[in-house]
């Protein structure tokens, strides 16, 4: 939530804008053809995100995307032990190739990075698909030539601006996944546990094994990008729809690094909103149960 505070807080007060006059001006401009030299932009950012990007000197350039799908051979989801390496590799490779492609589109558009990337991924029995779509951005007036490497991030425009103000920069997306068999219980164990409320350690252990491997891979990817951490990590875990004896854990997030001398305190101000939602009509009062 962002807001301009009144002048008595020692902050600049923006000039009041005559919105009616602006609207009239805007509609009159429609009678003229668009300027041929105007830079054409395509973006899936909201107007709030665009305004906040401009406030730190960045602008949207182009809607970009990348996709990859990798095959998983027949039979790998059958009962077994340990990790289902084919599936874990298919996820990692699909994520990496999709990232390369969105990266290439961003570079081609003359942008410095991609923000607000929507990450969609699906695990099928025989293939894993990863799709990335976001808006390429650059410093206002930039031409895509920058000493800094191009970044891809799933942070919103607002989060990117906040990170920027705090002295940090996004470096890219890091992902990790692991799919692990929950081994069969022995006949003796199954008989002993029959009819009891007990922990199924084979599943618990499989969950832990997949989690540790996936998180480690994501952290390794972050280190590979020379990042110091990963923010906005999203994880999923659980058995596969098509193979309940196999559990999967996936994780991805945006790798960040401090580029300022030190972390800059953003200094958020506390506000007390006075616009509490109106209390809904209380039907019990119809029965005369209220006071009076």
């Amino acid at each position, binding site marked *: *939530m*962002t*807001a301009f505070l009144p002048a008595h807080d020692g902050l600049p007060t923006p000039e009041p*804008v005559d*919105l*009616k006059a602006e*609207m*009239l*001006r*805007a*509609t*009159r*401009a*429609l*009678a003229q*053809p*668009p*300027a041929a*030299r*105007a830079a*054409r*932009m*395509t*973006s*899936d*950012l*909201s*107007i*709030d995100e*665009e*305004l906040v990007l*401009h*406030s*730190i000197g960045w602008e949207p350039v182009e*809607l970009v995307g990348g*996709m*990859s*799908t*990798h*095959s*998983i*051979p*027949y039979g790998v989801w059958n009962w077994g032990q340990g990790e289902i390496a*084919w599936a874990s*590799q*298919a996820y990692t*490779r699909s994520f990496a*190739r999709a990232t390369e*492609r969105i990266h290439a589109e961003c570079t081609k558009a003359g942008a410095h990075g991609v923000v607000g990337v929507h990450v969609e991924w699906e695990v099928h*029995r*025989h*293939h894993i698909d990863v*799709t990335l*779509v976001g808006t390429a951005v650059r410093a206002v007036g930039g031409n895509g030539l920058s000493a800094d490497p191009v970044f891809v991030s799933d942070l919103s425009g607002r989060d990117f601006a906040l990170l920027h103000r705090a002295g940090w920069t996004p470096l890219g997306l890091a992902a990790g996944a692991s799919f692990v068999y929950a081994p069969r219980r022995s006949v003796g164990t199954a008989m002993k546990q029959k009819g009891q409320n007990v922990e199924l350690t084979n599943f618990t252990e499989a969950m832990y094994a997949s989690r540790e491997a996936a998180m480690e891979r994501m952290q390794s990817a972050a280190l590979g990008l020379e990042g110091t951490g990963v923010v906005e990590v999203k994880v999923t875990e659980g058995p596969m729809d098509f193979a309940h004896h196999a559990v999967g854990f996936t994780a991805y997030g945006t790798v960040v690094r401090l580029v300022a001398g030190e972390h800059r305190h953003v200094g*958020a*101000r*506390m*506000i*007390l*909103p006075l616009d509490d939602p109106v209390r809904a009509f209380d039907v019990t009062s119809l029965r005369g149960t209220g006071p009076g």
Partner: protein
Amino acid sequence: MSQVPADLPEAAVRRFADGAFTSGLTVPDFAACLQLGLEPVGFVQGFCVMQWQFYRMGAGMGMGMGGYGSQYVDTGGYSENYQCPHGMVSAEHRYWGQNYEQTWVEDAWAEGFTSAYSRMVEEAAEAGAHGVVGVVDTSYPLADMGVLEFKVQGTAVRVTDGEPPHGGQPWTTYLAGQRLAKLVEAGYAPVSIAASAASVRVWANCVTENLTEGSNSMYGMATPGSEIDQTVKAHTAVRRLARRRVRDQLEHDSLHGATLVTTTRELGQGDAELQCVLRGNRVRRFKEFDPVPPPVPTVRLL
């Protein structure tokens, strides 16, 4: 005011002549529009019901039927061929494959959407509006009978002291209220909504089939765990086509607040049908960007 269009219902003309306005705006959006000098004129809608036949005769005929018959479909749009690397090995073997743009699906979508859109704009023009705000468009199947209904609706508004729209065509936008106010303040004028659909069909060759189905090819050339090139190319193409088509509508304007949705219908044996719909607001810069001061971060105490 434009002339009464031939296909506008007679009742609509009478309704718009009445004094009371109608609006699909929420109360906050209504209040914000009044602050912008936008007076609601009427709730306007456009419909178009299309028969929806995905497959035209001849398209893909002969596919999956072994090594006979013709093959590659020429739709006049994007197309890529995938020859079997094994040579002719059996009647069941998919010895060729193809990705191709389903131009007839795209044309049908465009016809349905554009008809519904122009009918809504027609109503707005008839009501004497300068623009339409808060546009919502939907398309959904009717009663599971191969029929698709396109609906576009919004609130027609008049700009206080504004001149009639250029060419008699009201401007349109998905935005309303505060979001529209911020857009204008940022220096963008709403021109129109922009939307397009692209459709690509994947007829898998043997390699794509083996990789997608996880089957082990006795003939090789389908390395287990590798990327499925034909599918990736189809996905890349369908998004590229949708984006290109919207860019063609923009001239030198920009697209703001876009949404890009891709749906995949897997048809087995590696075959698939992909559809991508891109929509957003076509906007025109009418003044240089006026940078806002850095926003103040706040924390809400609840």
